[in-house]
Structure formats: C-alpha cells, structure tokens
C-alpha cells in the first residue's frame, strides 16, 4: 500500500480491484480457519504460484514478507512454549500466507484502483457516508507511512548527533511536533489542490 505497486500485464494486474479484494478476503478467512498443515501446505503452493503468475521478482516478494518474520521471531517461541511446536508452525504459516496474499494485492493493484473500488463499494451508502472522503482518508493514511518513517529516521539521527540516544523525550517531542506540523502542511496542500470541503 505504501508505493510497492509493481507494474505488469498479468491477469492479476488486469483483474478488477473489487474482485481481488473479495478473493483476498475469502482466501485469508479460509487460511485463518484451516488447521491442517496439509491444507496450509497446499495454500503455500497456491500463493507461490500466484506470485509467479504476477511475475513479481523474488527479491521484491521477499521484502514484503520480511517484516512479519520479526513479529514471528517473538511470537513463535511463545507459542511453542505454551501450545507446542505444531500450533506455532500453523500460526506462523497462517500469518506469512495472509501477509503474502495482501502484499500480492498491493503489488498488482494501484492505490487509485483501490480507492475507486472503495468508492464503488460505498456508493449504496452515499446518503450516510461520503465515499470521496473515505477514499481520501485512506490515501492519506497510506501516504503517512513513508512520511512518518522518514520523520522518525531524521529525529533518530538528530538524537544520536546530540548524544542523547537513550532519551525518550528527545525522540517523542520532535516526532510529535513535526507530525502535527506535517499534518497541517498536508492539509494546506490538499486545500490548494481543490480538496477544500
């Protein structure tokens, strides 16, 4: 969602975003309910095949899954400790597969297509929900991830330069102040681009 769209012409790229979102929801729900390692093994083969069909380079696909491995590094030992290795393996497989499928969606779908799909989905509720506004909020949430990542990185560098590595205050205060200022600037830019209601 944060700019990892990988252009291509596979059928996964061409499929309507709304259809892909629906299939994604069904597959993730199925994986969440599947308790047998055999079923999860079959799901793994399916996911790998889908990545191959979409012609996503291995390195790019791997980068999408790596962040969840950090979570698993903490979660798996706890699961092994309390529920045994089999439950830990099933939990890890479910998480990795769900993240991989979500990543496959974002790699094959431009954010604008997702916003259009959201708006189409919300159209029947337009009396109560402003679909444009929901779409804009989603776009901004996506945009804020790299923006805040960069901001935190700069503040961490500045904190290190001042020799205050351990100080929570030296991290929290500049991040909060700059986040609020960034939000204000972003709002101003939206008004300037005509999103002023």
């Amino acid at each position, binding site marked *: 969602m944060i700019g*990892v769209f990988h252009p291509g012409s596979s059928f996964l790229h061409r499929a309507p975003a709304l259809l892909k979102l629906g299939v994604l929801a069904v597959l993730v729900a199925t994986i969440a309910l599947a308790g047998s390692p055999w079923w999860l093994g079959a799901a793994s083969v399916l996911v790998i095949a889908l990545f191959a069909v979409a012609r996503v380079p291995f390195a790019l696909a791997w980068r999408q899954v790596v962040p969840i491995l950090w979570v698993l590094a903490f979660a798996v030992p706890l699961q092994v400790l309390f529920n045994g290795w089999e439950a830990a393996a099933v939990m890890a497989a479910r998480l990795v597969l769900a993240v991989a499928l979500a990543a496959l969606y974002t790699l094959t779908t431009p954010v604008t297509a997702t916003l259009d799909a959201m708006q189409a989905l919300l159209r029947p509720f337009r009396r109560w929900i402003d679909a*444009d506004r929901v779409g804009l909020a989603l*776009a901004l949430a996506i*945009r804020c991830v790299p*923006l805040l990542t960069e901001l935190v990185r700069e503040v961490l560098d500045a904190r290190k330069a001042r020799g205050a590595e351990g100080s929570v205050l030296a991290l929290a205060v500049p991040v909060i102040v700059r986040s609020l200022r960034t939000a204000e600037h*972003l709002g*101003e*830019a939206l008004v300037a681009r*005509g999103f002023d209601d």
Partner: protein
Amino acid sequence: MSEIGFEGVSHDFGAERVVDDVSLVLRERRIGIVGANGSGKSTLARMINGLVTPSTGRVLVDGLDVRRQGREVRRRVGFVFTNADNQIVMPTVREDVAFTLRRHRLEPADATARVDAALERAGLTDLADRPAHRLSGGQKQLLAIASVLVAEPAVVVADEPTTLLDARNARRIAEHFETLDQQLIVVSHQLDLLESFDRVVVMEAGRVVADDVPRAALDAYRALIG
C-alpha cells in the same frame, strides 16, 4: 493574463501584523516576490490561492473574491509549496498527478491523457510508476509542479520552490518555469531566478517597499539587506 488585486490587505497572526495595508495589481506574466524571513511575502502569496484569508481588505483574482469564491479561485490558481513532500499525497508519481483530477470528474481517457501530458512536460514519464516518496528532491518538486499543472490553472504561485534544492536541481526547476505558459508568481530568496522576470515586489515588515522591474527592485532589496 489574470489580474490579481490586493485592496488594502492586512493580515495578523495573533498580535503580530505580518502583512500591513498592501495594495497591488498584478497583471504581468512573471512576477517575483522577495523579502527577508518574516517580511510577509509567503503570507501574501498564500492569499492569492485563499490558503490565508486577509484580516482586512480584499484579494481578487479576475474579479473573484478569494474569501467568498475560494473554490473557483483555486481552480484558476495552482500553488507549489517549498517542501514537495508536503504536497505529495499518493504513493506513485502517476497516481499523485492523477489525484489532482479526482474532483474534476473527467472521462478516464481524458484524465489519462492530461496526466501523461503533465508527466511528459515535467520529464517524469520514465518515473511514472516509481514510488513518489523515493524520488530525489528535484524530481519531487517537478512532480509537485506537474500535479499543479495537470489541473491547467491560469496562474501558478510558487512559495520558495528551490529553497530546499541543490544548485543543479534549482536550475532545473528554474528552466522548467521558463517553459510554462501560465502566469507565474514566485516567492524566492534566489535573486538570480527572478532576474529575467517582468516585475519584482520587495517586502519588508509586511509592507511593499519596492515594486519595479527586476534590476531596480533587486538593487533596492540588496541595499535593504546590506
């Protein structure tokens, strides 16, 4: 060219008066605004797009009152910010340019054609599917300008568009500005950028202290800052 009028305009931030009784009519094609930090030049520029509304007085763009007809004014006046990062909303270059047109309700083919044209003009066609936040500073500023130009405004206001850029990228933006058909109003500290303009307004402590052709106005500004 559009006619931009400031009629007895003042603006206060709290107890501080940042723009003080300014009256101007801007009709030239390329207009520069210079002044020291805190002189009120950015506030004055923001009033043209309605980002700031004056505490007293009126700002008119082609007869439209910015305070009361802000939306129509913003369709005519595009605004480029100092920090392009604050202006980029969508993840990829193409999507960010297209985002501007979401409220224009164009046919998809027309929107695509306009986006392609804006990208080509900015020299960003090859980067169209790249993540916008991973572009260089100069490329981000070109993207910000393309995102403004795709709406085909009559006037482009740029608030210190080259301040955060190195000399090469600043020159690239300046060269890009030279190719624009739109009326251009640039707030800048980089005086060489304004030397080829038609008119330069010098601000000091919220007031216009010089308003002339670039050579005379920039000489007055240099004398002012010593």
